[in-house]
């Protein structure tokens, strides 16, 4: 088991955001976390990324993540957030290069990037289609380009587990497909897994190997798409006929 989450609880003040959430991810799996707004999906990602205090346990290959040093954790788990506020004109390449930080964060090696840095950065830029923009200031990028820049950063980081919060955000259909295919390819290398928060259930169905349906800070169902995305469960969570809506949307295309 790569990641095991048990009885996860997170609260902001008196408000419980997550309450007894539990699930696990194996190598080679792409877990899609779905659920309505406010279900606690992003908070779950945030907790696994080590960004907030939590109760319960989150173990990466048996080790509690809060015991890991930041650089160690970054080599295991990489995160792509939804929004990317940037205020200085760093170049795309500079941002992507920072992804290699955890691979040379030692005291003596801190000022020099490792030998494989250039290689990893070039590969990540190539994969995300940002090679041509590598010298461009991030302040001049569009939302989609910014998203791809930070995706390149996390790919350069080369984690074992990739956490994606709404990766389709800001992306046009061309890049949506490209990015999702890219991540599926990335996942083919042994020893890797992906967790992503996603609203688009069609995408979840198409790319996810497992789906976790969340509501009110806890897991409602977890399993394959056919097991989880049943009309009854979706009706319970979204309070509407999701199947009907999806069909209606698709029917326009005929």
């Amino acid at each position, binding site marked *: 088991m790569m990641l095991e989450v048990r009885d996860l609880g997170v609260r902001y003040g008196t408000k419980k955001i997550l309450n007894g959430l539990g699930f696990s991810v194996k190598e080679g799996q792409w877990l899609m976390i779905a659920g309505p707004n406010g279900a606690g999906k992003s908070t779950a990602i945030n907790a696994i*990324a*080590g*960004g907030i205090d939590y109760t319960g346990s989150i173990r990466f290959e048996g080790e509690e993540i809060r015991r890991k*040093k*930041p*650089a*160690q*954790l*970054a*080599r295991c788990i*990489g*995160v792509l*957030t939804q929004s*990317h*506020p*940037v*205020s*200085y*004109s*760093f*170049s795309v390449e*500079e*941002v992507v*290069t*920072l*992804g290699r*930080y*955890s691979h040379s*964060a030692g*005291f003596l090696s*801190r*000022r020099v990037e490792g030998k494989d840095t250039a290689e990893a950065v070039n590969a990540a830029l190539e994969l995300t289609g940002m090679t041509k923009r590598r*010298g*461009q*200031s*991030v302040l*001049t990028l569009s939302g989609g380009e910014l998203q791809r820049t*930070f995706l390149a*950063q*996390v790919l350069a*980081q080369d984690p074992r587990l990739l956490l994606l919060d709404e990766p389709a955000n800001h992306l046009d259909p061309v890049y949506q497909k490209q990015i999702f295919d890219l991540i599926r390819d990335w996942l083919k290398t042994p020893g890797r897994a992906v967790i992503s928060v996603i609203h688009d259930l069609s995408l979840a169905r198409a790319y996810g190997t497992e789906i976790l349906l969340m509501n009110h800070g806890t897991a409602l169902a977890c399993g394959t798409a056919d097991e989880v995305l049943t009309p009854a469960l979706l009706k319970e969570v979204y309070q509407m006929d999701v199947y009907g809506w999806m069909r209606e949307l698709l029917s326009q295309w005929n």
Partner: protein
Amino acid sequence: MPVNSHKKRFSAADYLLFSVVTAAVLCLCVCAGSVTIPLKETVNIIRQALYARICMLFGAPASLPEGTAASIILSVRLPRVLCVAATGASLSLAGAVMQGLLRNPLADGSTLGVSSGAALGAVIAIAFGITFPGLPFAGTMTMAVLSAFLSLLIILGLACKLDRSLSTNTIILIGMVFSMFVSSLMNIVITFAADKVQQITFWTMGSLQGKGYSEALILFGALLLFGGILFFHTRELNAFAIGEENARHIGVNVRRVKLVLLIAVSGLIGICVSVGGVIGFVGLVAPHILRMITGPNHRRLLPASAFGGATFLMLADLAARMLLRPRELNIGIVTSLAGAAVFLVVFWRAGRGK
């Protein structure tokens, strides 16, 4: 679309270029001053003094140059210019780091009130007689560094509570609130120590007149120590400048690095203030102008800011000494004039950006 063609590193050639410019300005500031001394004589005096020093080093008998011109150059101008250069470099470095940490080009020791906080520490040390026996500067210095650190903690705390994204308006607001707070505390201290009003006033005005080699040594020591620490954290600073959350995700030990950076910044600001009082806007002007040349990458920005800050403050000091001869302007007036202009430009750009 504009292409960011900045290099990543501060190359040997860049170092050479910046040091040559800084050294040239240093020479200019030693040669020019309130009293006019012919260039030839200045060069002679410095040559003789160097020669004598080298002779003494090897135990050979030698005498230092004498006379009024020699006194002016060796005892008044040179140590003062050195102090000014070290102060400029330190304040500018501190400004650049704070702008990276807070992701806002308006953040600076003076705009946020950290310098006033440090001055308050120095004033408290004087008013309540906090001294360390045998170490003349240690009392005010320690208190200044400590209260600069405390000020930074308060400011960051306020920033966190008020507005996590740290917009320009928040920075200005925090700076205003904190400076007002410090200035009222200062007034309270003054009521308790009315007999030391003159000493206390000094800290709020700032002057590097009459500073000697020992002060220059302290300032350069601090610059070397704390500046050195900062130079080892350029990648983390880049990460912070892009975003604190992103920094955590790529594996930066946010808490520890932030603490180290804050200690280094307080050290720089505290020691500068305890020697020369509050000299505003240096940390705003120099990094801002240099960022336009080097780009935001701290690996280039930090060394450039150090050299640029030294150059800027030396020129400001030269203006302060020369403009109203034989009178002298307060150096803070000159830097504030330049600072106000840069402040407006930054603010205007930020406003237009929205």
